[in-house]
């Protein structure tokens, strides 16, 4: 066990699964070379942010495929490889680029098991960076996990820490269905204790990072850290929060969310993706339908405005939810009093 960054945890998961299973291959833009590469040093960097560094050197060109800028073709190739016996991990670089290859994912990979009567397996992982806060502008900053969650046949993972990332990525690689694995680009240098050995975290099991009595906060990916920060501050004022990290948006651990809301009676959902038809609306609908009687206050959603992610630093900062906004949402549901008598 040692401290590892989010980046190292993902790199280690890839390395250990490639060592364990020769069918695991990597394919993507710049995953061997990338920024900082010069002639003769193929593995100078390992992807735009260095996540796959060292894997080309260890496993060679037969298992680490560097591709041209051609999402439609290499994602398609990865889908085909998965359907015919390999276990590819494709890197889409920025998830925003999915527009160029959505058919391969949505109409092909996601549909095979269903359309072939359950007989087809598509053990494909697509890794991609998501999220604002990196000053990468509107085409490189979106949090598109709701888009994939919308499509039956895909599994969608949004890890919230280095420990979570390693275990969930190993689980993703061992899974026989197509998995979209989204890494918040701002978190690559976050560090925590991560076991050296391989381990896997099952999908569809939420993690409670805080347990409290007053308010349930459901947060996704990087927002889990902000929710924890808010919960710790609120704890000092006597407001105790449960923080739920669902880990995967598909499958979603609805049972844990409902149980916690039944305990606390109040719900705040923190989702950095665009606010229409996102995970916050999905969880709000779930709770409104299944746990309405438990609610002591309206459900509050904390998220960005319905705009493209702004490039200007000050605007981008305003755009993203933070601990202060979560804290004030929690205070608002705590302050809520029913004004009308129950009929």
């Amino acid at each position, binding site marked *: 066990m040692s401290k590892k960054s989010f980046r190292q945890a993902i790199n280690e998961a890839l390395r250990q699964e490639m060592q364990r299973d020769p069918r695991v291959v990597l394919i993507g833009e710049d995953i061997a070379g990338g920024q900082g590469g010069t002639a003769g040093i193929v593995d100078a960097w390992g992807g735009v942010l260095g996540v796959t560094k060292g894997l080309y050197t260890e496993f060679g060109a037969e298992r680490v495929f560097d591709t041209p800028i051609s999402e439609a073709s290499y994602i398609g190739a990865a889908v085909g490889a998965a359907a015919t016996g390999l276990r590819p991990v494709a890197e889409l670089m920025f998830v925003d680029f999915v527009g160029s290859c959505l058919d391969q994912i949505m109409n092909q990979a996601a549909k095979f098991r269903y359309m072939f009567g359950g007989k087809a397996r598509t053990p494909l992982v697509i890794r991609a960076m998501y999220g604002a806060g990196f000053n990468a502008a509107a085409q490189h900053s979106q949090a598109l996990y709701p888009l994939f969650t919308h499509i039956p046949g895909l599994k969608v993972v949004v890890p919230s820490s280095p420990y979570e990332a390693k275990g969930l990525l190993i689980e993703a690689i061992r899974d026989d269905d197509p998995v979209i694995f989204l890494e918040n680009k701002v978190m690559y240098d976050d560090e925590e204790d991560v*076991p050296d050995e*391989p381990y896997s975290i099952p999908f569809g*099991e939420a993690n*409670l990072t805080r*347990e409290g009595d007053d308010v349930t906060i459901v947060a996704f990916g990087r927002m889990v850290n902000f929710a924890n920060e808010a919960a710790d501050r609120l704890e000092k004022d006597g407001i105790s929060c449960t923080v739920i990290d669902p880990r995967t948006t598909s499958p979603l651990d609805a049972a844990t969310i409902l149980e916690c809301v039944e305990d606390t009676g109040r719900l705040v959902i923190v989702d950095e993706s665009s606010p229409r038809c996102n995970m916050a609306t999905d969880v709000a609908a779930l709770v409104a339908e299944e746990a309405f009687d438990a609610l002591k206050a309206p459900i509050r959603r904390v998220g960005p405005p319905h705009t493209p992610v702004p490039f200007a630093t000050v605007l981008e900062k305003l755009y993203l939810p933070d601990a202060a906004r979560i804290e004030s949402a929690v205070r608002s549901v705590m302050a809520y009093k029913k004004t009308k008598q129950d009929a």
Partner: protein
Amino acid sequence: MTDLITPITMPKFGLAMTEGKIAGWNIAPGAHVDAGQEIADIETTKITNGYESPAAGTLRRQIAEEGETLPVGALLGILAEPAVSDAEIDAFIAKFQADFSSDSATTTQAEHADPFMVNVGDLTLRVQEAGQGAETPLLFIHGFGGDLSNWMLNQTTLSATRRTIAFDLPGHGGSSKNVGEGKPATFAVTAAALLDKLDISKAHVVGHSLGGAIALELAKAFPQKVASLSLIAPAGLGRDINMAFIDGFITADRRKTLEPVLNYLVHDKTLISRKMIEDIIRFKRLDGAVLGLQNIAAACFPNGQQADDLRPVLVSFDGPAQIIWGADDEILSPNSAKDLPATIKVTLLPQTGHMPQLEKAADVNAAITAFID
């Protein structure tokens, strides 16, 4: 007058403990306390433990507030007789705080010993060493599903005059997940090989639960290596075992299902902390961990009963042997300590479950110290 002032400082319960939180004061300022009286509850990341007063006196100051997290060695309060003036206490505090901030970093570093890996045959074992001295070394052997952190409240105390070794059994903690045949005798061979590797020819052996059975197998196969046996709630002396614990420990993979299983371990259920549950879940997620536990359970507890009867080994053991058992053990019954030769000292601890070394650490440490010194 400063010799009449006793600082109460954040204790170091385990080797890995660097800070603790004041879960609550049990004594109000101005009250008299006896030495050994529990004056506060200290919460670490692993466990909440009562803090016993190092001396008698009046609690003149509570410096740490409830809920505050402080580094090991930080000033929590002041004990002094009523004759000591407030000015003297203020001066003492000022000097203490000035000294503490300047040398705390170095002391913490020197005392902190990280576990390290040792290769024994084709296995890699995670080992934690502490202490040195001329006295015969001491070896801790944990039980089913445990790891070396089970001795976090014991190893430091018992290391005052000797070298002590705690390690993760194969299949546990950070050690190799290959458990071989998974029987107590298998692990005894590993323990003996570890002693050889560490250049220890003979050791006092403290074994808990399944580790007690392993200690007995060690005494049977390598009697020359065992100076004494301290068996804590040991397996091997009876047939019955709470299989709801064993099976539940293997199958439960979520906090909600694991917590009731871990509750079997202790009399005071509040000792099972979030962190303890999380650590066990994380261990069980490691590749091969659950398989290893299954293999051990199948080898040691087939058909819901203990396979090995090691009573004859204990009865015929040449050296000193003692047994420590919690009266309220819900996993292995203390009745198994009955009808043993009178030369074997049996300590039964009231209001204590299956893990006396955690739940009644001070009593267990005292019993072991008195026994081996």
